[in-house]
C-alpha cells in the first residue's frame, strides 16, 4: 500500500482522487470529528444527553469521538505509523472505510435526530455542522484508497478481506491482551446498559458505532486474532469474563441497571440451554420458554409465599432442585413420545406444549380448575432468598459500594449461568456431545454408527429443559412473582420462545458466546428503544429475515457453521505456529 501511485485504475477505489488528497481528507475529517465532540451541537439540553456544553462531550458526542478516533487510528495504521501495525493485521483498507462509516452514521443520525426532535435545522449549533461535514470527509477519502478487493465493486468493501495467518505472542502477553479485551468489553457493555431508557437516540447511536466499528475490527483481522488468543487461554478468558460480570454491579450507582443485568443474564442462560437442544442436537423447540415457566412456578410454589397453595418454604438449593426436576419431568413427558419421530413433529408438539402450559396455568385458578397457580394473578409476594444468613433482598455495603437487591440476585444468577456454561461446554466436548452433533448432521448415519438416536435426543431435550428450569427458579424470586404472561410463543418483550430462539440464531448456534451476545442485544434493544413498542414484532420479523439472508450463521459463527454457509473453497487448516513463534513460546515458558 506504500506504492499507491503504481496501482492500476482497476485497483483504485470508486472515487478518482489522488492518494495525496485522499489521505489528508481522512486525517482532517477524523480530527475534525473528534474536535466537533467538544463543541456544542444544539442550543437546548432538551435533546437527550445534553450536547450543549463546549469542552464536555456527552452522549452521542462521546460516540462520535470514539468513532472518529478509531477512524484516525486505522488511517494511521494504514500509513505504517510505527506501533499501530497490530491494529490492522490484514493490512486492508476496508477497516478505514467501515470505521469512518461508524463516525459518519452517528454524526448524521444525531444531526437529523436533533432537527426532527426539536423541529427544524435552526436547532443545530455549529458543532453539529462541523461534525456532519468532518465525518463525511473520511468516507470520501476511504473510497479513494486502493480497493480492498479489486474487481468486486462496492461489495468488496463489505466482504471480509483475506486474513493472514496469525502468529502467537508470549503466553503472558496474550493473557494481558485478553484482560484488556475483557475490560474493553465490560466498559462497552456498561456504557450501553447505562444509557437512559428515555435516550433512545443515544442508544441507536451506540448500536451504529458498535456495529460499524466491530465490522471494521473484523475486517482488520484484529477480532480474529483476539478470539484465537482467548481460545488458547480458554480457562483464563472464562475466569476473566466471570470476574467482569461480578465487577459489573460495582460499576453501577443504582440498582436499576443491575435489574436489567440480572434479567439479561436469565434470558441469556435460558438461551444457552436452548442452544444445547437447537444448536447442538438440531431439534427445533418452539415452546422452550414453558420449561422456564415450569421452573419458575415450581420455585414459587415451594417459596413459602402466602399465595402459594403449598404452604412450605424450601431453602433455595432445594427449590432450585425442585424446579429443575419439575422441568426435567416435563421435558421427558414431552420428549419421550415425539423424539422417536423425525422431522418437524417435535416443533409442532413443543409449540403446542408451550401454549398448553400457558393456558393451563391461566386456568388453574380455582374457578376453571383446582387452585394451584391463581390463574392470571399469579403467585405473588415470593419472599427473598436467604443464603448463608444473607438476605438477598437487602442492600449490603461493601467498602464504599452499595450492592442492592438486584445486584445480589445478579451474583446468584451468575452462579447459575456459570453452571450452564460449564454443562454446555463439557457436554459438547464429549462422547454424548459428539453424538448430538452427529444426529444434527445426519441422523441415519448416526444411528448406523451405533448411536441410539432416541436416547441421545431425549437426554439433550431433558437436559435443556432442566437448565431452563434452574434459571426459572431464580427468575421467580427476582421478579417477586410469577404469572402466565411471559411464557408465550411470541411477545413484545423477552423472554418468550420466539425471542429465545432468535437469541440463539442471532448470536450463533452451537457456540457459548453467541447466545449470550444475542440475548443481551435482544433484551437491551426493546428495553432502550421504548418508542418502537408498537412495531416491535414487525421490526423483529424484518430483522430476522435480513439476518437469515445475510448472515445465517449468526453474529458469532461456530467454526463449523461458518464453513457451511460461506463456502469459499478454503480448507479449514488450523493455524500453525511458525518456527520463530515456537521459539518465543519456548523461551517464555522456560
Amino acid at each position, binding site marked *: 500500500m506504500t506504492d499507491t501511485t503504481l496501482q492500476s485504475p482497476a485497483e483504485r477505489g470508486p472515487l478518482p482522487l489522488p492518494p495525496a488528497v485522499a489521505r489528508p481528507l481522512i486525517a482532517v475529517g477524523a480530527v475534525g470529528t473528534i474536535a466537533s465532540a467538544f463543541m456544542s451541537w444544539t442550543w437546548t439540553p432538551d435533546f437527550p444527553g445534553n450536547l450543549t456544553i463546549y469542552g464536555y462531550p456527552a452522549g452521542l458526542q462521546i460516540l462520535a469521538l470514539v468513532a472518529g478516533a478509531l477512524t484516525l487510528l486505522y488511517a494511521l495504521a494504514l500509513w505504517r505509523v510505527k506501533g499501530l501495525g497490530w491494529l490492522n493485521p490484514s493490512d486492508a483498507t476496508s477497516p478505514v472505510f467501515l470505521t469512518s462509516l461508524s463516525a459518519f452514521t452517528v454524526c448524521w443520525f444525531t444531526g437529523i435526530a436533533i432537527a426532527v426532535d426539536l423541529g427544524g435545522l435552526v436547532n443545530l449549533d455549529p458543532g453539529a455542522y462541523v461534525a456532519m461535514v468532518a465525518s463525511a470527509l473520511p468516507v470520501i477519502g476511504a473510497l479513494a484508497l486502493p480497493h480492498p478487493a479489486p474487481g468486486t465493486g462496492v461489495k468488496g468493501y463489505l466482504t471480509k478481506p483475506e486474513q493472514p495467518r496469525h502468529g502467537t505472542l508470549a503466553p503472558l502477553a496474550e493473557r494481558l491482551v485478553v484482560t484488556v479485551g475483557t475490560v474493553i468489553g465490560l466498559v462497552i457493555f456498561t456504557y450501553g446498559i447505562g444509557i437512559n431508557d428515555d435516550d433512545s437516540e443515544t442508544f441507536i447511536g451506540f448500536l451504529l458505532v458498535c456495529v460499524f466499528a466491530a465490522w471494521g475490527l473484523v475486517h482488520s483481522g484484529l477480532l480474529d486474532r483476539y478470539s484465537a488468543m482467548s481460545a488458547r487461554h480458554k480457562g483464563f478468558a472464562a475466569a476473566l469474563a466471570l470476574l467482569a460480570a461480578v465487577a459489573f454491579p460495582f460499576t453501577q450507582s443504582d440498582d436499576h441497571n443491575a435489574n436489567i443485568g440480572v434479567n439479561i443474564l436469565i434470558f441469556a442462560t435460558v438461551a444457552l440451554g436452548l442452544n444445547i437442544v437447537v444448536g447442538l442436537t438440531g431439534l427445533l423447540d418452539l415452546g422452550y420458554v414453558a420449561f422456564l415457566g415450569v421452573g419458575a412456578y415450581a420455585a414459587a410454589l415451594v417459596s413459602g409465599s402466602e399465595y402459594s397453595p403449598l404452604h412450605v418454604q424450601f431453602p433455595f438449593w432445594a427449590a432450585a432442585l425442585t424446579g429443575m426436576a419439575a422441568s426435567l419431568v416435563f421435558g421427558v413427558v414431552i420428549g419421550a413420545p415425539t423424539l422417536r419421530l423425525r422431522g418437524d413433529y417435535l416443533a409442532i408438539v413443543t409449540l403446542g406444549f408451550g401454549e398448553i402450559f400457558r393456558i393451563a396455568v391461566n386456568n388453574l385458578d380455582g374457578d376453571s380448575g383446582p387452585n394451584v397457580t391463581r390463574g392470571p394473578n399469579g403467585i405473588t409476594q415470593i419472599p427473598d432468598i436467604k443464603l448463608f444468613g444473607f438476605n438477598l433482598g437487602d442492600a449490603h455495603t461493601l467498602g464504599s459500594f452499595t450492592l442492592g437487591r438486584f445486584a445480589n440476585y445478579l451474583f446468584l444468577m451468575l452462579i447459575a449461568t456459570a453452571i450452564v456454561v460449564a454443562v454446555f461446554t463439557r457436554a459438547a466436548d464429549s462422547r454424548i456431545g459428539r453424538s448430538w452433533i*452427529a444426529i444434527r448432521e445426519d441422523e441415519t*448415519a448416526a444411528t*448406523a*454408527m451405533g448411536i441410539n438416536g432416541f436416547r441421545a435426543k431425549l437426554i439433550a431435550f431433558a437436559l435443556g429443559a432442566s437448565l431452563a428450569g434452574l434459571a426459572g427458579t431464580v427468575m421467580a424470586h427476582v421478579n417477586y412473582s410469577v404469572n402466565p404472561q411471559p411464557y408465550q410463543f411470541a411477545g413484545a418483550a423477552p423472554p418468550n420462545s420466539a425471542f429465545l430462539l432468535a437469541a440463539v440464531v442471532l448470536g450463533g448456534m452451537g457456540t457459548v458466546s453467541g447466545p449470550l451476545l444475542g440475548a443481551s442485544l435482544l433484551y437491551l434493544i426493546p428495553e432502550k428503544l421504548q418508542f418502537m413498542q408498537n412495531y416491535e414484532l414487525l421490526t423483529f420479523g424484518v430483522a430476522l429475515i435480513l439476518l437469515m439472508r445475510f448472515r445465517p450463521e449468526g453474529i458469532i459463527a461456530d467454526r463449523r*457453521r461458518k464453513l457451511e454457509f460461506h463456502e469459499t473453497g478454503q480448507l479449514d487448516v488450523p493455524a500453525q505456529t511458525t518456527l520463530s513463534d515456537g521459539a518465543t513460546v519456548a523461551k517464555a515458558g522456560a
Partner: protein
Amino acid sequence: MRFGGLTAVRSVDFTVNSGEIVGLIGPNGAGKTTFFNCLTGLYVPTEGTVAYQGKVLPPKPHLVTQAGIARTFQNIRLFANMTVLENVLVGRHTRTKEGLWSALLRGPGFRRAERESEARAMELLEFVGLAGKRDHLARNLPYGEQRKLEIARALASEPGLLLLDEPTAGMNPQETRAAEELVFAIRDRGIAVLVIEHDMRFIFNLCDRVAVLVQGEKLIEGTSDVVQADERVVAAYLGEPFEGEPGAAEAAEVEAAETADSTEGEAR
C-alpha cells in the same frame, strides 16, 4: 423386503463366514443396497431375520452396530461439519460408555476413555492414510478420502463384519487399487467383509465368494470362476431375455402384492 407393491429383496439366504471377503453384485436396482439396509436395521424387513454369530439381531441400527456389523453408504454419509477425527470418534460410540454425568464431572475415568478413544481413532486414521488431516472438516476432503474416512469410521466400532456399499464408485484406477489393498488389510485384521461393487475386476480380484443379486433374488453364489462362467449372470447384466426368467414370477408376485396393499393404502 417390500416397498408398497415392489418387492425389492426376496428370499435371499446368505451367509458370510469370518475372515472372508464376499462380493455382492447385480445390475442397478437389483436390491443390493436394500439388502444392506435390511441387514443393518435401517429397514425393517417385511419377513425374515438377520443373525450374527448365531444370535438373531433386532432391526435397530444401533443394536446391529453394537453387535458387530458396521457399514458404509453408497452415497457417502459423513458428518460433514465435524472434523475427520470427530467422525471417527463418533464411530467409537458403541465401544465406549461415558454418559452425560461423566462428561460433566470429567473424572479420571472419563479422561482416560477420551484419550484411549482418540488414540484408537488416530490409529485407524493412520491405517487408512488420513492421519495428517485429522482437523479438517469432513466436507472438505476430496471424494476418495471421504470414502476412506467412512471406512475408518465404520472400523472404529470394532466390527466383526464390515459392509461396504460400492467403495470404489467414482474412483480412478489407482485409487481403486489402493482400495483393494485396504480391503485386504481389513480382512487381515480378522474382519469379514461383504462388499457391493459394480467394478468386476475389483470384485473378482478381491473376493473369495461372489453372490449375484438380480431383481431382488439371489441368482447364484460361488467362487469367482463359477460366477464368471455362468451365462445367466452375463445375461442379467446385458439385459438379454433368458430361460427361467424370474421376471414372470416376479410380475405375478407384484400384482398380488399390489392388490393386497391397495386395501390398506400405499405404505411407503
